């Protein structure tokens, strides 16, 4: 049977078929749909959202040494968070099959950097599989678990944005239950630091065995051509672009890109006059080949290092013709930047921060858009949880007016140790937690502050205010995020407070299913009272546009009844539709 599946859905399907019994991860584009699909279609795989990627990896590690087949998912930068566990797991090796997804993002469609996690795998000595289409996402998921069990090694399945977010036809199968492996208490294997000297040679033994395996495994495939002028070494989705642009070239397709097969590469390159190395991301394969002494290569110097590849880009690089450029000559191709949703509770906070003219250290979430016009009220953003540490550092550098902002999910993910540290080191930190009870940017997933888990079951809701007080923060205030005056006043009080202070701006994300479903009475503009002062436009709500007579008009089917525009109207011309009727 064939299904038309997203790369991520194909991975989920493969995991289910392979008898996976534990799945953990943290939402992150482009990996999120794997766990969402498992929750929706294959709950017997026991999927969950974890507090962060390190926790997810460690839970997966425990489940795998405990004997289950395991999948752990994260985006590329998530692996940085999990790296501590990732780097040590090969020292003990696994028991049940263990696959970790690293969803890399060439082009940085939704990420802060473009790191190529094949390098992390090399540092950790973890084998890497790179599928090239949705079918292989499915197949490599299953084969990855088998490989993991064969070599008792964790396996990285590296996807990229295009692979994860494209759909194709996938031949699917049925679930096959796999017997749980026995867990034997064995400190000499699983207590790595104490017995590290025993474990260290084992890591090299496994890696050597994997290197031999790479030479002959079916992940790597030669597609020879009679014309020996041009050969291509490629991996991942780039293989598809090569097949499209250079249908007659000889190809060595590497489905396993760590460890790399030296003999296979030498043999392939010896048969072709010129060999192109076409891989998205860093020159990971290319550098290895150059280090082998292979010289008839062309790679990054013509295809480039930065951004996503495409057939058009390959054609240009190979001088096979330049695709047409966008029409920008006579007409204005103005941008359409992303913006906060209608009724988003973050708006009032950014309006307040702008009004207070403070320095804002931001964090990862929808609220990174606070750095863009019209607010331009977020001045640093780096990585998950960095808002707090950066604010503490800025304070030490004399910028005491700094306010840190962080969402509830990001706070739970990486904001807790820096808050404890800020209190411990006597900072004057002012922290605003944007608590919308959801992991918003990736699609409003559940988290420990939402009171529900991935499967929608009730679960204890983290009491953020009690938690902050327990760290020693002296002033913790909770405020309704849609009360704009109260937001300003509360943040002002928090800044003035001597000692660390926290403001929790609370209000549910409008994208949560239960919020989307509720009945909303929209606001409308009573034109007789409207003086066209434009105050409501300064709320920057996308539901407010102009009539031909220049009156504001609120889109009734979009309005979330957040009240903010009515709060700013000096003539009370904005009213609930019901009241007007």
């Amino acid at each position, binding site marked *: 049977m064939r299904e*038309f599946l997203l790369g991520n859905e194909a991975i989920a399907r493969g995991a289910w078929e392979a008898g996976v019994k534990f799945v953990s991860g943290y939402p992150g584009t482009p990996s999120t749909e794997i766990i969402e699909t498992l929750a929706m279609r294959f709950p017997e795989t026991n999927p969950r959202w974890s507090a962060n990627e390190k926790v997810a990896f460690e839970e997966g590690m425990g489940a795998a040494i405990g004997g289950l087949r395991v999948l752990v998912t994260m985006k590329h930068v998530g692996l940085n968070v999990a790296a501590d566990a990732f780097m040590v797991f090969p020292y003990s090796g696994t028991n049940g099959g263990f696959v970790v997804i690293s969803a890399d993002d060439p082009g940085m*469609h939704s990420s802060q950097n473009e790191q190529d996690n094949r390098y992390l795998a090399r540092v950790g000595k973890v084998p890497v599989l790179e599928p090239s*289409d949705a079918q292989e996402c499915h197949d490599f998921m299953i084969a990855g678990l088998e490989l993991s069990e064969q070599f008792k090694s964790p396996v990285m399945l590296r996807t990229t944005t295009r692979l994860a977010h494209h*759909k194709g036809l996938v031949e699917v199968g049925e679930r096959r239950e796999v017997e749980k492996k026995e867990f034997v208490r064995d400190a000499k294997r699983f207590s790595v630091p104490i017995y590290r000297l025993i474990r260290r040679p084992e890591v090299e033994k496994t890696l050597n065995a994997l290197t031999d395996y790479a030479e002959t495994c079916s992940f790597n495939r030669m597609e020879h051509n009679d014309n020996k002028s041009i050969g291509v070494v490629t991996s991942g989705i780039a293989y598809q*672009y090569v097949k499209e642009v250079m249908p007659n070239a000889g190809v060595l397709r590497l489905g396993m890109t760590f460890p790399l097969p030296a003999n296979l590469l030498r043999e392939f390159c010896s048969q072709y006059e010129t060999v192109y190395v076409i891989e998205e991301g860093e020159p990971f394969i290319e550098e290895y080949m150059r280090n082998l002494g292979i010289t008839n290569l062309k790679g990054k110097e013509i295809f480039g290092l930065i951004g996503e590849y495409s057939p058009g880009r390959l*054609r240009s690089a190979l001088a096979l013709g330049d695709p047409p450029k966008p*029409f920008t000559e006579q007409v204005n191709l*103005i*941008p359409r930047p992303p913006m906060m949703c209608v009724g988003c509770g973050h708006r009032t906070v950014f309006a307040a921060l702008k009004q207070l003219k403070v320095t804002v250290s931001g964090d990862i979430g929808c609220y990174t858009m606070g750095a863009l016009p019209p607010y331009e009220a977020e001045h640093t953003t780096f990585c998950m949880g960095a808002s707090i540490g950066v604010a503490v550092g800025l304070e030490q550098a004399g910028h005491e007016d700094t306010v840190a902002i962080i969402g509830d999910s990001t706070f739970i993910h990486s904001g807790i140790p820096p808050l404890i540290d800020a209190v411990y080191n006597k900072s004057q930190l002012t922290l605003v937690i944007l608590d919308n009870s959801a992991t918003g940017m990736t699609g409003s997933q559940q988290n420990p502050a939402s009171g529900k888990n991935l499967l929608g079951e009730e679960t204890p809701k983290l009491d953020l205010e009690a938690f902050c007080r327990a760290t020693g923060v002296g002033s913790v205030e909770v405020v309704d995020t849609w009360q704009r005056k109260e937001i300003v006043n509360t943040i002002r009080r928090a800044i003035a407070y001597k000692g660390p202070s926290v403001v929790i701006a609370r209000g549910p994300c409008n994208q949560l299913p239960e919020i989307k479903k509720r009945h909303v009475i929209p606001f409308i503009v009573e034109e007789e009272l409207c003086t066209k002062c434009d105050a409501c436009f300064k709320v920057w709500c996308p539901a407010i546009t102009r009539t031909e007579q220049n009156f504001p008009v609120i889109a009734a089917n979009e309005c979330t009844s957040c009240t903010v525009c009515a709060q700013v109207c000096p003539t009370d011309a904005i009213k609930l539709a019901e009241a007007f009727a």
Partner: protein
Amino acid sequence: MNTYSLMFAGVGGQGSLLIAELTSLAAVSAGYDTKQTEVHGVSQRGGSVETHVRFDRVAKVHSPIITPGEAFAVIGLEKLEALRFAHYVDPKNGTIFINDHELIPASVADAEKIYPHETVEYLKSMGLRVIALPASKLARDLGDGRMANVVLLGALSTILPIPQDVWEKTIKHRIPAKYLEGNLKAYQAGKEMMS
């Protein structure tokens, strides 16, 4: 030509992804090898959304991404987005469908003044085949302006090699019962505009 490449362009929330998916599913049902991919930025809400669909009966479809200049059709749910992706059309054999509808980017200063209101005329002056359709207006007349996407799908279906019964079956299969009747009407209205 063997591979049909289609580019769907719109603003997040307009339903360009839905009609791209309906097209892919119809192509799959009709026996074509099919690939689809969606490109969007940090937030899909209110930003540009582009969806690529490619299908082929004879050969395997390799790349899900279309190269500018090769699209058999560009389907723009909004003028500015149609213009942003118009260069993807095959200048000789391709068609650009444009919903005669403007969504002014709210967060761009003076957007109303600098918005490309003359998109249709400009693209025609470039020698391209452009079909401008009042899809939003038609959809509103049918009871819900949000069905403009399916009106455009009806128009698009008339130039694709997928049989009519497959289109209808796909729509019935994919659209929730509550919205089905309206969407079938919208689809029909789009088709009729092309006859």
